[in-house]
């Protein structure tokens, strides 16, 4: 393997890893985003319950 071929192979490995990490990052973001939505819903329920209790 020539130094040029070696450099090309290294570049390919990094590019592939970046692409996969980007996908995993999106997946993680989506999971956390859904959890935030869940918390938002819980918060609204808690506030609603509190208001109703006062009445």
């Amino acid at each position, binding site marked *: *393997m020539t*130094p040029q071929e*070696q450099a090309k*192979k*290294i570049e390919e*490995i*990094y590019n*592939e*890893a970046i692409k*996969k*990490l980007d996908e*995993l*990052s999106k*997946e*993680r973001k989506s*999971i*956390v985003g859904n*959890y935030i939505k869940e*918390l938002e819903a819980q918060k609204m329920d808690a506030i609603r319950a509190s208001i109703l*209790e006062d009445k």
Partner: protein
Amino acid sequence: MSHEFNEKGLLQEELKSITNEKDLEKFASDAEDLGHDELAKEAREKIENLKKDLSSKIEIAETTPAYQQEAIKESENAEKVSEITKDVDGRIDKLKAETEAKIAEVQNEGQNQAETTPVTNSEVIEKKEEKSFEELSEEYTKIGEKILEAPKRILRSMTQDEIKLYSQKYPNEAPYLNEMLNGLDKFRAENSSFVFENFSKYIKFLGEIRGEDYSKEVLSFPEVEALRLKQSEIVSKQNETTPVTNSEVTEEKPAEGIAIEK
């Protein structure tokens, strides 16, 4: 009696389902009006219990600083996030490890290859710089000319009186001196050590009678050594390009004396 029993039973069931203070107060008041003092008492006890429970919660909230409450909440959230992202985080770590391993493998492969087949840049340059026999011969001639430049210059400056003095001092060598001086331009440095040995003899004599120091011009050993190395290179190159017989080698070998151009 049965009506009273039914009414009390119903009120007891109702009391069980009431959980807020206002409803319990109303229930207690109604129960008293209906003559169910026990139920009214039970309702009021329940109110007291609710108040106690509430006050204990308030006490906890008051004694737990806000930042701690937030920290507890954040910690709970962080734990939850960590739990739900466990799978994807694991895949990210795995990918990182795999990438590092792949890069190391490629780098090691390159290193091993370099060790087994040492074709380095310096070697490429060396190959590019490898000179032909003709080029080496030309270089050799130039170096030789440079080395002989100073000794020839000194010998050319030798006057007839100086020649006469030398001949008187070394009568046996007089014919050789004349021969050398007459053919000075034809001398080459193919056998540098011999040339320098002979030239040195005459130049040393001139230095003595002139009161000059010609040692630097005559005995430039680094230059002589450079010329000798160049000569070895040429011989080696010549053997590589034109394989010759033993007899030819003997004939082609530079003469162990002063070389004179034909």
